[in-house]
């Protein structure tokens, strides 16, 4: 009797803990939504993209709530970083696996793992003290979209490289044997056989890296200048959605505070979509 009872207790405890762990994300969504309600109701979704500017501290009537420049900033810095980091990350993974001599490949992998472990605030201070002065010499003011793209590229590169590397490792040896027996060169093997076989893994890697880039706060906050404007060149200073939250949460009140939660909800939605896409990509892993 008591034994059965202890097994029941165990099972239900574990179920309870798992349930709590699973509900955190719902709780996050719910709190973000509740906090967003005032802004959504009083300001309305339309004004977030049609108002003339971002001056939310004036309240619902006098203030203006245009997110578009910051959404553009996030979009620009994310797409720039993903465009750069994808080829570099895939190249790094290929280097580890097909081009580097054995020991060097392992060492390089460790190095990329190290790069993945550096905190974003450290990337930020490096960008602030080293990268920005360099850009300033070339095109003032230095704090710019370009600085954000470069720092973010280095930050998400390890995500692309490490996930791609593990999907390259999962390519069956028999494919490589088959390719060698056909007299395919190294590049022909990689391009014709290995990359198609690892395709879904690479897509997942890029999607997760994109999520990381969208959500990154500290590094872009520290190097992009944080001026609310739609960038017209890579040398313009811009403000990302994440940086905007970090800058204004400290003093935001009422509708302003609620508007910041709306932008948080938008970030969350983007990430949910990306995660859903990556799950879909990895489940549909066979070539068709």
């Amino acid at each position, binding site marked *: 009797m008591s034994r059965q009872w202890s*097994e029941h207790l165990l099972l239900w405890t574990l179920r309870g803990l798992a349930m709590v762990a699973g509900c955190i994300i719902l709780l996050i969504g719910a709190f973000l939504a509740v906090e967003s309600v005032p802004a959504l109701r009083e300001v309305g979704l339309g004004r977030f993209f049609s108002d003339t500017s971002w001056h939310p501290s004036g309240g619902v009537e006098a203030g203006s709530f245009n997110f578009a420049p910051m959404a553009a900033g996030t979009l620009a810095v994310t797409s720039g970083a993903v465009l750069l980091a994808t080829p570099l990350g895939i190249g790094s993974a290929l280097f580890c696996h097909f081009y*580097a001599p054995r020991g060097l490949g392992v060492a390089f992998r460790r190095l990329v793992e190290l790069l993945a472990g550096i905190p974003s605030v*450290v990337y930020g201070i490096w960008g602030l003290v080293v990268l920005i002065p360099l850009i300033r010499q070339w095109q003032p003011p230095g704090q710019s979209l370009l600085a954000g793209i470069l720092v973010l590229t280095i930050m998400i590169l390890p995500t692309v490289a490490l996930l791609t590397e593990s999907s390259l490792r999962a390519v069956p040896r028999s494919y490589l044997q088959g390719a060698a027996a056909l007299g395919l060169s190294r590049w022909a093997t990689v391009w014709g056989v290995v990359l198609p076989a690892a395709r879904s893994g690479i897509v997942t890697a890029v999607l997760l890296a994109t999520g990381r880039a969208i959500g990154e706060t500290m590094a872009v906050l520290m190097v992009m200048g944080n001026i609310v404007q739609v960038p017209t060149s890579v040398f313009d200073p811009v403000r990302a959605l994440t940086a905007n939250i*970090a800058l204004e*949460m400290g003093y935001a009140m009422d509708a302003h505070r609620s508007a910041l939660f709306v932008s948080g909800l938008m970030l969350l939605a983007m990430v949910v979509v990306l995660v859903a896409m990556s799950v879909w990509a990895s489940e549909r892993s066979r070539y068709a």
Partner: protein
Amino acid sequence: MPDPSVSPLPSLSEHRVDWPDRAVASLVWLVALLVTGSLLWIVGDLARHGAPELSWSFLTDSPRDAGRAGGILPVVVSTLMILGICLAVSLPMDVGTAIFLAEFTRTGGLLAHFVRRSLDVLAGVPSIVFGLFGNAFFSIYLGMGFSILSGGLTLACMVLPILIRSTEEGFRSVPDEYRKAAAALGLSQPATLWQILLPVATPGLVVGLILGVGRALAETAALLFTSGYVARMPSSVLDSGRTLSIHIYDLAMNVPGGESNAYTTALVLITLLLMINVLTFWIADRWLHRGITHR
């Protein structure tokens, strides 16, 4: 039978240079050099700017002049307290959820599916969103204010998916024979878990723990509006306290002339993370290898 459409069989001794192959190889090497160069640049820069100020007293003094002078002792203490709270809350959740996912859901099930998907999404949530949530839920709704407690709890939500993924991996690596043997001996399920499965799965748990600590130490954005900025020595978990990463951010962005100490703090943080990193590999290598040879 020579066929005009396929290039003729080459002589075996003549080496043709495959230009596309060569070009790609050079490109790949270039990428590797670029990545290595960036890392060396960042780390070298950190060491060059940070090392001159680094001393024992830097670790044991309180910050003076808004952090431009003095040390980082209260910051280190706050960081450790936040980390402690984070782990105290997330570890039991981690072990419970991981055991549930790995041992009780072999055949699927709705709850397991839901938990897995939720954790996938949770792992991708931006840290600033955790900050917003922590501020609204822990600091305001639960009335904890800007405090070490609130920051620690926010971080616990954040590292949970990392911990669970690794711990679950650990449980899954336990060979099925152990479970069968335990069942054949008539051991109860709780006894099997504690006496047999948990010890074997420990390496996975430890690796996850270390990864989680690394992530928590690196975090800044989630703490800005939960644990706050105060650089005084905290007297309880309800005091506000800043972590090393927030200290770096504040010195670099808000304190003119604070870069030097920001760099030194960054060096301390990186050294800490590096030690953690090495520890992970050491443990993973040692324990996982032993696991394999024992099997």
